[in-house]
Every structure is written in C-alpha cells, then in structure tokens.
C-alpha cells in the first residue's frame, strides 16, 4: 500500500496539484504564452524599427558628409580669401573631420552600385583634399597662379562630390524605400498575426479556465446533493471515486469516509440498543420466573421464617430431652428451609445445592422410614462453581414423587456431578417408574397434565421442572441444558443437566 502511495507521489500528475496551483497554472500558462507572443512581436518590431532606422541612418550620415565637405570648401575659400590663422585652423579641423567620415565609406570595388559610388566618393574626396591641401600650401607660399588653379580644380571636384553624394543619397533612399515598403508590409501583417493569435490564446485560456472551474464546481454540486441525501439518512450514497490529490479529491474521499463511518456507527448503536433491550427483557423474565417460584413457594409453605425458627426451637428442645435423632432431623429441616429462604432469589454454589439435596433426602428418609436409597458421585473440583439456586432439590423431589414413590421395589436415587470437557454434567437418576417418550416430550414442553402432580398436595416444594429449565436457560443464556432420559415404563428416569464450566463463576 505504501509502495503504491509513494509510486503515486513520485509520478507527477496535473490533477494532483492544489486548486490554487491549478488555477495559477492555467492563468500563468495563458499569460506566459501571451507574454511570449508579445516578446516575439516586440523583437520583430524592434528588428524592423532598427532596419527602418538604418534606412534613414545612411541618408543622415550622407547629409553629415555633405555638410562636412561644404565646411572644408568654405574654410579653404575663407583661408584663400583672408589668410587668417583662424581660417587655417578651421580648414585643418574640417579636413580632418571630413577625413574621419570618409573612413566609414567603402573602399572595395564591388558590383553594388551604392558601394561603388561610396568608393568613388572616397577616392574623389581624397583627390579633392589633395587639391585643397595644395591650394592652401600654394597660398602660404604666395604662389598666386597655382593656388588659384588648385582651388579652381578643387571647386570642380567639390561639384562632382556633391553631385555624387546626392546620387548616392538618392540611390540609398531608393533602395531603402523598397526595404521600407517591405518592412511596412511585414509590420502590418505581424500586427494582424499577433492580434489573431492573442485572440485565439485568450479564447483557449477562457475555455481552459471554464473547464477547470467546472471541474472544481461540479464535484461540489455533487457533494451538496449527496450531503442532502446523507442528511436524510441514506448512508449508501457515495460520491464518485476520485484519486486526485487536490482539495476536491481530498474532500471527496473524506466525505465518503465520513459517510461510511456514520453508517457503521449508526449500525453499531442500533445493535447495542437491541442487545440492551434483549438484556433488559431477559432480566425482567428472570425476575418474573423467580417471582413465580417464590410465589409458589410462599403459597405452598406457611411462613418459612417462622417455620425454621420454630424448627430451631424444636431442635434445641429435642437436645434438652436427649432425643438426638429428633434433634438432628429438626436441624436438617431447619437447614433445608433456611437454605430455601436465604437462596430463594440468588445463585448458590454447587456444594450448597448438593447439601440442600442431602438435607432434603434426610428429611424424606425420616418421613418414609429410610425407603429412599440415596447415593452420590461428586467431582470435588467443581463444587465451587455457581449455579442458580433451587435447581437440584426440585429434580430430586421429582425423582422421589414421580419416580420411586409407590413402587414395589427398592427405590434408589443417585446424584452425580462430573466434569466433561468444558461442561459439568449433573445427573439425578432414579430406578422408579420411568417415563414414556410421550411423557418426556410433554414434560419438556411444559404441557404435562397436572393430575399426577396436583398442586398443593403438600409434598412438593412447589418448583416444577419447567421452572428449573427456564431459569437455567436464562442464567446461562443457552437452550437445551436439561435433558430427561428414561428406559421406559419401570426402567427409571435420569434428569441430566449440562452447564458450562465457567471459571469466572468460581
């Protein structure tokens, strides 16, 4: 999982960018393109303007050349006329300036008429300067004839030069005008070009932003709709899955997780409430059964407290009269009833239950002159576990009343408590009348006819088998803990209780 995540992280995806970055990216993208378009346009325009500048630049420099030439000629004339040192200086200066300007002119012989004209102008200018120099030096030497002639010749060259410069100017202007026209056309088409491109880019940019914003807004709209359904309790509504790492993706996943959690939480709460409800019902039912048992007990007994106090008094009286048997009997009775009174609505240890059974058997044996042969087989290790009270005694009572009473053979009752795996098996077996399958079924279903066991006969503690079974099921929250086995008519009966061995109950 982690690897997948890191893999995802490593791979750059546009949709994982945050919304801010995404919008910024879109705007930047369009802006950058428009910027570059402008830059390209600007560069080209600049290039063209430079070219156009050159168009006139060459004409401007020729004008300068022409002006300097005029200056040279004027200063020569001025010197020849007045021969002042100022005019001489002026001549040298202007001649030097002119010479410098000549340096920029072409000196190669080429086919290009402009270049050739430049070369001719350069050479003619040199001849011209030689002539003016000669005129100036002849003037200084006062050679009138020669300086006149030289100046005359210089004048002629001056005319040629002016005319050539004029020609060159025209020529350049003509050439440049052609270039200028071409550049002008190019400039116009560049304007059209870039306007169209900017328009296209703007449209594309707007479309991009539109789709991007729609991509952001539509999940939000979905969210609003889904949230409404969820609010109405439909936890099965989910947003479409989205694996992008932007805010919308994060929010979508968070929302889906939230809805899932809500669903789980609500289910859990409902389940808990149901369980609680069941528990309450169980408690109520248990209480009702107990109440029923107690009521039946109270109905069948005269005030047990009074009874077992009286019995105690009887036991003491028997002791005083040295009637030991009577005393023991009464004591047993007292114990039995005390146990019934004390444990009526509580659970008890298995040991206490067994003790209660033994008390009961003792009492019966006194009553029936030792007709009941009781034996027990107890696994001592399980005696400490807790079970619902008044469980074993009713079983023994049933074995006595319905099993071995009125039989022609010796009646036996055997109580055994064994540990079997995770369970404890408690068995009450008699060798009495036995039960038919039909009867067993009726007893288990609680539909047995009461003629065999008339209520209030006085012999019963009043707690029926169905009551025992119900209390066991409530206590252990399990069914079929009680089982009745019988070999049939006169083959004895065994009531078997299987309860779980729970350490906590010890």
């Amino acid at each position, binding site marked *: 999982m982690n690897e997948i995540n890191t893999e995802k992280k490593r791979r750059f995806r*546009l*949709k994982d960018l945050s919304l801010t970055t995404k919008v910024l990216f*879109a705007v930047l*993208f369009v802006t950058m*393109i428009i910027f*570059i*378009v402008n830059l*390209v346009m600007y560069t*080209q325009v600049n*290039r063209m303007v430079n*070219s156009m500048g050159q168009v006139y630049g060459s004409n401007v420099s020729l004008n300068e050349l022409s002006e300097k030439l005029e200056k040279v000629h004027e200063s020569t004339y001025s010197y020849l006329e007045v021969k002042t040192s100022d005019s001489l200086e002026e001549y040298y200066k202007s001649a030097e300036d002119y010479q410098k300007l000549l340096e920029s002119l072409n000196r*190669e*012989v*080429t*086919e*290009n*008429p*402009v*270049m*050739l004209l430049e*070369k*001719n*102008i350069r*050479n*003619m200018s*040199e*001849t*011209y300067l030689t002539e003016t120099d000669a005129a100036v030096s002849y003037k200084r030497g006062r050679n009138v004839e020669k300086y006149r002639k030289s100046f005359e010749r210089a004048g*002629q*060259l001056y005319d*040629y030069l002016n*005319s*050539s410069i*004029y*020609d060159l100017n*025209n*020529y350049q202007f003509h*050439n440049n005008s052609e*270039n200028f026209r*071409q*550049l002008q056309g*190019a400039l116009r088409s*560049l304007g059209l*070009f870039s306007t169209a*491109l900017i328009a*296209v*880019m703007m449209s*594309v*940019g707007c*479309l*991009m932003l539109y*789709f*991007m914003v729609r*991509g952001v807004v*539509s*999940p939000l709209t979905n969210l609003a709709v889904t949230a409404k359904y969820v609010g109405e309790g439909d936890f099965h509504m989910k947003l*479409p899955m*989205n694996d*992008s790492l932007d805010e*919308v993706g994060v929010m979508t996943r968070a929302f889906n997780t939230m809805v899932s959690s809500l669903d789980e939480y609500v289910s859990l709460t409902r389940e808990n409430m149901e369980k609680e409800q069941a528990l309450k019902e169980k408690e109520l039912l248990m209480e009702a059964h107990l109440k029923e048992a107690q009521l039946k007990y109270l109905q069948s007994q005269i005030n047990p407290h009074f009874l077992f106090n009286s019995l105690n008094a009887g036991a003491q009286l028997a002791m005083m009269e040295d009637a030991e048997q009577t005393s023991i009997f009464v004591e047993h009775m007292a114990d039995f009833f005390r146990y019934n009174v004390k444990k009526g609505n509580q659970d008890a240890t298995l040991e206490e239950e067994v003790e209660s059974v033994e008390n009961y058997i003792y009492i019966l044996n006194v009553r029936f002159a030792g007709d009941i042969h009781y034996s027990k087989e107890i696994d001592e290790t399980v005696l400490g576990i807790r079970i619902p009270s008044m469980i074993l005694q009713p079983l023994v009572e049933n074995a006595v009343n319905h099993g071995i009473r009125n039989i022609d053979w010796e009646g036996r009752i055997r109580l055994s408590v064994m540990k079997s795996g995770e369970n404890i098996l408690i068995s009450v077996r008699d060798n009495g009348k036995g039960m038919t399958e039909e009867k067993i079924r009726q007893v288990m279903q609680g539909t047995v006819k009461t003629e065999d066991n008339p209520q209030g006969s006085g012999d019963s503690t009043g707690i029926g088998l169905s009551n025992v079974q119900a209390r066991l099921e409530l206590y252990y929250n399990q069914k079929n803990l009680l089982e009745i086995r019988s070999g049939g008519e006169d083959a004895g009966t065994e009531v078997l209780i299987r309860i779980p061995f729970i350490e906590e109950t010890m």
Partner: protein
Amino acid sequence: MQRRKTFSIEIVLMVLSLAVFGLFLGAVLIYYDNMFRSIDMKEEKLNRAYAKQYEMIVDNRNSSLWGEVYGLAKEKAALNDAYLNIRRADWSTEYDKTESMDMCIAAKVDGIILEYNGEAGLTEKINEAAEQGIPVITIMNDPNKSSRQSFVGVNDYQMGHAYGTQVARLIDENTEDILILSNRERELDKNQLYSQIYNAAAGKNGTIKVREQNLISKNQFDVEEAVRNIFQSADGPPEIIVCLDEVTTVCAYQAMVDFNMVGEVSIIGYDASDSILDAVEKGLIAVTFTMDAEQIAEYSIEALTEYWEIGRSNTYYTVDLNVIPAPPLKE
C-alpha cells in the same frame, strides 16, 4: 470519472494552444528571417569584391549597341576580376564626357573605356588619365594624337569601303544629292569615309552632289530638329541620306515616314536597334551597319587586362562591320 474527463479537455486545450503557438512562432520566425535574409541577400549578392574598377563612358548608354557591349564587357571583366561600371545619368546632372573623364580620374579608377567623339578637352583628359596611370581605351573613333592606350573599332578604310559600296548600290538615274549626316568633331573628319563614298558616287554618276552635315554642335534634341529641317528645305531632301549613328538613323527614318517620302529618300543607317531592324525588315531603311558588339566588348577588356597584366596592350583592335541586310551573293 467526470473530473478526469474535464481535465483531459484542459490538457487537450493546452496542447492545442501550444501547437497553435508553436506554429505561430515558427511561421513568424521563418517569415521574418526570410524577409531579413532577402533584404540582406539583395545587397550581399552584389557585394562581390573585384580587384579592378573600369568605367565605360559612352554618349548614349541606352542605345542597343552600347547596352549589348556593356553587358558583354561586364561579363568579360568579371572573368578577369574586374568590375565594369557604366557612367550613370539616372539621378542628377548629366555630365559630358570630359566631366565624366574628370570624375573617373579623380575617383582613381583602374581603366576607362571611352566612346571618343572628338569633344573639346577630351583628348587632354585622356592624356591626364594616362599621366595618372589610368589606361584609356577608345572605341568608335581614334584620337590619334592622344595618349590613349588602345583603340577598338572599325578602321576608316574598311568603313568607307562598306558605306561606298552601299551608296553605289542605291544610286539610280534620279539620284542627284547624297547627304552624309555625321555626329563627330570636325577634326575627326574621316577623309577615308568621305572619299570612299564620294568615289563610289562619282563612279556611278559624276554629277551627283555629295554633301556632309555635322550635327555635333547641336544641343541635346537638336539632331531631330536638324534632320526635319533637311526634309523641309526648299530644295527638298537628298535622294540618299547616310547616317553614321543610331539617333540620326532613327530621326531620319521617322522624318521620312512623317513627311511621306518613303521611296523618294533612301536611308543608309547605322546600328541595329529593334526599331531600326524593324524598319530594315519593312524596307524603309535600305541598309544598316552595325559593329560587332562582342568584339568591341572582348577587345576592350582584353586591352585593359593586358595593360594591367603585362604593362602594355595592342594599340589597335579592328572590329568587324556587319551589313544588314546581308548583301546578296555577287552574280
């Protein structure tokens, strides 16, 4: 799923806009680069440097002969690493030949091809150029007394003979007057030419008058006026007019047509411009002469090249004179 779809639309748009942008950028850069290159190339193409600069000075650079000669000579010069320029008269002052020579000398060119016509002061300029070490090749006429380097042209005898033959062919019983229209300085009077024509005429008919009229002193457009005056003179035009240059030929032919004298006047022309050839074809001009342009071009450049290569060249190059239409084979 929907978001994925919209996102791919964004990517498609991005790619689309990038493609459009790339196309635009490419188109603009290529277009403008080509434009600037074409502007540069236009000039660079002409920027071949040559070792020598020759100038060609002729009367009428627009004449078909000089146009052809210039074209050919320029090619030949280029083969010898020289550039031949023809004096331009496009822009400003139209300089006469003396002034053009003066300018060429001041510009220190490496050679001058000059159509010599005996203009005043021209010989001095030829000498001045020679003093400055600039070889001058004269064509058409030969200033004998100058320091010109070489002469390229038809010799007078050859020319006189050719003209004489044609004049003699045209003389009939009605021929009384023959007029030679020349366009050159009197000092250049070519006795050979005149005497040959005179002899040819006299040989046919001793009473025929042979006159000569020089149009050199006239101003720019005066040739045409002078030719018209001839046609309008009281005595009427001569039966045969001999023209020694292109302009005179065209003027004479035009005046003959204008004055409705076709058939009455025979013209012997010079040069082979389209209009002259057309007139020859129609029979309006009896015959015209033309110098071999290729020979003029070749010899002129050869003379200049040799001068610079070995310090000297022939003083005389003879060019063939062609007759149009070609004379029929002798019976």
